[in-house]
């Protein structure tokens, strides 16, 4: 479908206005609320890794009758997985901030 000329002109006008607004706006810093969100997400990541690890270990113990050895091992693995997820999350935030700073 052919886009009318006046719509095209309006589109250009909107794009220009958006660019101007972006240049005028000061760089936004993280608010306290976003810090809280980061903290909460880190907490959930740490806990969920451990819980999922423990659940896998418990299931393996129940199925193969390992006398709770798997529960112990997989809880530790789960804790490590939680820390890994938290580390990756923090790394992604840092990368994002570096990109924004450029």
């Amino acid at each position, binding site marked *: *479908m052919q*886009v009318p000329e006046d*719509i095209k002109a309006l589109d250009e006008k909107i794009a220009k206005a958006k660019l101007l607004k972006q240049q005028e706006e000061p760089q936004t810093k993280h608010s306290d609320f976003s810090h809280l969100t980061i903290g909460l997400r880190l907490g959930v*990541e740490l*806990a969920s890794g451990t819980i999922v*690890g423990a659940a896998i270990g418990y299931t393996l113990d129940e199925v193969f009758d390992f006398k709770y050895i798997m529960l112990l091992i*997989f809880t530790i693995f789960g804790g490590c*997985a939680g820390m890994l*997820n938290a580390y990756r999350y923090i790394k992604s935030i840092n990368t994002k901030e570096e990109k924004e700073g450029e």
Partner: protein
Amino acid sequence: MSGPMEQFEIKKLIPIEIGGYDISFTNSSLCMVLAATLVVSIFALCLRKRTLVPGVYQNIPESIYEFIYKIVLDNVGKEGVKYFSFIFTLSLFIASGNILGLFPYSFTFTSHLAAVGALSIFALLFNMIVGIRKKKWGYLRTFMPRGIPWPLAPLIIPIETISLLSKPFSLTVRLVANMTVGHIMLKIIAGFVAALGVCGVVPLFFDGCIIAFELFIAVLQAYIYTILSCIYLSDALHYH
């Protein structure tokens, strides 16, 4: 007066049992059907007269569409656009479920681990299928990233596997906890309104404020769920 946890009780509306399995139509199922119907109806109504320059009503679904499209584009890239319909459906379903739960006599199905957990597992399976289709055997690299010495494989493979499996769990817990806590708080404070008599105006005011805040949380949580689903999809497509 009913307890604060009573609102989360699942009630059978149409009992159905097939092969010993209880697949009854419950109040949770009803709210899910309502949420889906509501979204489709609103979109169909607003998009009745499609024009090149959108009117007020056409602007509503278009803005939502563009907003989620931008999330997919920013987090997954152009490659993710073909999976947009899945992300769009998922986020609208959760957002409508969260908002619907705020209405009196309604039921918040997003406050149940089983409902949200099933959605998250479905999203994880979807991401895995997308990753396997794209990278074939290379997808196994997710469990053993490049550059790690092979003697470390017995440690890294279980850790990476748990890391992958904990993603839907953390997604679920975040949404369920937010929805459950908000509704419990509303109910407890509402309990004070009747108990305090004339002074009940104070908790009533607080309840009003919390409802406004809950509406914000309902949309925010759907937004977070969408962003995280996009990030996990991006991991399946680009990672390692």
